[in-house]
């Protein structure tokens, strides 16, 4: 018998029972909750006269439609200008109060984007099953956890039963060997992988990211990578536990301490694929060959290296892809053959659960330090992923660097990643964004999103158009 993959182990550890029809009941260790996908689940729970199964397995935080403006934020929930947003945040407050659940208030320093908060607080731990009514829950897999997004009915199911009905996924290994070039980041790796396998390439799979590039990668980078696995169609992405993981978890508020810490660490050391484990699919990329990536279309798979150009739809042999590319160019207002570095930008957004951690902000700050945002840029904003990230960045003086360079320094939240609050693109505007989705209208009606890394977004803010950050000289 061959060995087990990391996913096999996580699955096996949480399997309550397998059914004849191939479905299984698995146990869930942590459910993260935010205001958008939970109200209907709580309502369902109430209607059926049920209660959460385990309140110590739940952590709630508002993030999606709260304001990132300091003044509006300081005035509290009652002051959220949009009444529909306000009601949603208030509903989360009420539900958590009614069911006695731990929730970080909007202005608590621990508040932030749910996928930044979980790992940061040590709520997400290696070896866990983690769910959230949000597809980017895959982020938490970076800690060696099985983490995936669920729908609202499943949110209710987990609240009521602490379990999920699941079918075992297939095992996919994405191995990135070698080393990344300077200026190339986890975001570029994620986009390069999606460019290679497509947005449906990982459908039905749990992806494990491995290889030297991943071993050398920080936890922040691993989270960026796992975050984007859903953009490759995979509900879950994960990375094996190593010293980097354990050092990251140590000392976090909800992480075990003392003797319990040592017991936990010895269990976590098992969380890797066995050397003889079999994967259903293996995808390989060479680290050296990955360049900074920029998306040109309306799907994350529509991506090219920064030194490339907008492709000609006629070059796609597949009719469906050709039609999609044609429509994407029309929506994006781009002509085939345009060099990526000629694309002019209107706004720049640095933030989201993909790229709003301290390392992301450091990378962006290093690029803009001592420079100014181009006059042609209407707005460039930096939205830290959490209150903790914001505090840390301010302690390092990053906020000053951004403000001096002409970028806005905002309060934590999802912000322009999906534009449920006031932060959005105008129709036809091009945005260099560190978020994860460039779908039509994602960042605002008619808005045109280009997904990039934080360093690339920062360089684009200064230049007013895309530039290859590998050529960037510090001043």
């Amino acid at each position, binding site marked *: 018998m061959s060995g087990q993959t990391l996913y096999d182990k996580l699955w096996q550890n949480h399997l309550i029972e397998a059914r004849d029809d191939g479905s299984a*009941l698995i146990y869930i260790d942590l459910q993260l909750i935010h205001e*958008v*996908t939970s109200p209907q689940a709580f309502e369902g729970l109430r209607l059926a006269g049920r209660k959460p199964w385990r309140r110590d397995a739940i952590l709630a935080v508002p993030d999606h439609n709260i304001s990132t403006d300091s003044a509006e934020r300081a005035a509290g929930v009652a002051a959220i200008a949009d009444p529909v947003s306000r009601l949603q945040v208030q509903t989360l407050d009420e539900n958590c109060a009614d069911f006695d659940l731990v929730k970080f208030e909007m202005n608590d320093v621990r508040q932030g984007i749910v996928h930044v908060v979980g790992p940061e607080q040590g709520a997400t731990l290696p070896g866990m099953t983690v769910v959230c009514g*949000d*597809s980017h829950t895959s982020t938490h897999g970076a800690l060696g956890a099985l983490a995936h*997004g669920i729908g609202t009915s499943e949110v209710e199911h987990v609240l*009521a039963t602490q*379990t999920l009905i699941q079918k075992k996924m297939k095992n996919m290994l994405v191995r990135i060997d070698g080393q990344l070039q300077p200026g190339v980041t986890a975001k570029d790796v994620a986009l390069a992988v999606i460019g290679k396998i497509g947005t449906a390439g990982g459908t039905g799979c749990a992806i494990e990211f491995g290889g030297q590039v991943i071993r050398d990668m920080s936890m922040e980078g691993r989270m960026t990578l796992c975050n984007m696995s859903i953009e490759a169609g995979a509900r879950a992405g994960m990375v094996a536990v190593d010293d980097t993981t354990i050092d990251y978890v140590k000392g976090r508020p909800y*992480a075990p301490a003392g003797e319990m810490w040592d017991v936990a660490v010895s269990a976590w050391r098992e969380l890797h694929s066995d050397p003889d484990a079999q994967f259903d699919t293996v995808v390989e990329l060479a680290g050296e060959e990955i360049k900074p990536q920029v998306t040109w279309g309306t799907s994350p798979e529509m991506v090219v290296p920064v030194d490339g150009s907008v492709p000609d739809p006629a070059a796609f042999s597949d009719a469906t892809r050709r039609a999609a590319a044609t429509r994407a160019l029309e929506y994006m207002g781009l002509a085939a053959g345009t060099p990526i570095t000629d694309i002019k930008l209107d706004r720049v957004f640095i933030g989201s659960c993909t790229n709003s951690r301290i390392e992301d902000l450091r990378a962006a700050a290093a690029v803009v330090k001592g420079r100014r945002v181009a006059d042609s840029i209407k707005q460039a904003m930096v939205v830290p992923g959490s209150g903790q990230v914001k505090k840390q960045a301010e302690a390092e003086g990053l906020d000053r660097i951004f403000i001096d360079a002409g970028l806005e320094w905002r309060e934590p939240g999802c912000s322009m990643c999906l534009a*449920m609050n006031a932060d959005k693109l105008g129709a036809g505007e091009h945005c260099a964004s560190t978020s994860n989705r460039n779908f039509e209208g994602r960042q605002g009606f008619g808005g045109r999103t280009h997904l990039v890394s934080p360093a690339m977004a920062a360089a684009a803010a200064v230049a007013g158009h895309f530039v290859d950050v590998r050529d960037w000289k510090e001043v």
Partner: protein
Amino acid sequence: MKAFTVENGLVAPMDRANVDTDLIIPKQFLKSIKRSGFGPNLFDELRYLDEGQPGQDCSARPINPEFPLNFPRYAGASILLARENFGCGSSREHAPWALEDYGFRCIIAPSFADIFYNNCFKNGLLPIELDVQLVDRLFGEMYASEGYQLTVDLQRQRVVTPSGEEIAFEVDAFRRHCLLEGLDDIGLTLQREDAIRAFEAQWRERSPWLFDAIR
């Protein structure tokens, strides 16, 4: 949940690949705290020429005459014919809620995104995966004949075309059972409460740090 047995209905096209959940139901409508009422905003950015706002009366909005669902010939359709990777993107269950509220009961496509596929079954909506060439042929037949209808028989796992041709489809046995009976998953799972408690006890023994940390 509404049970699904046999659906005989008009077929409408969503003729593009990678239809994402932002396209199915744009984010501004996710602010609702209800489960119903999303139908008028299904495919909002394609259906209307202006930008939709939650709570707005959609009947007065300018409609996009080029969007097929606005064609009289597809009015009242209950089966949606779609392309690869339908429902990709976010986990929002508002997407199946919007499709269901609009009147769709069944979506036929060569492939679906995982979370969306799963969410459909929780809401009485049947996603059917058929071979890409077959779907292509159905698109052709539908475009060629106005009033094109299909019969979807979940019990027999068959799609029946107007010519009487029967196309078999696969569906997971448990999901099929729940959909046929209109069963609520939670109630079913709670029948296994003892097994869950037993698992939990040994898991707590093995991994005590996973318990009682958040309070």
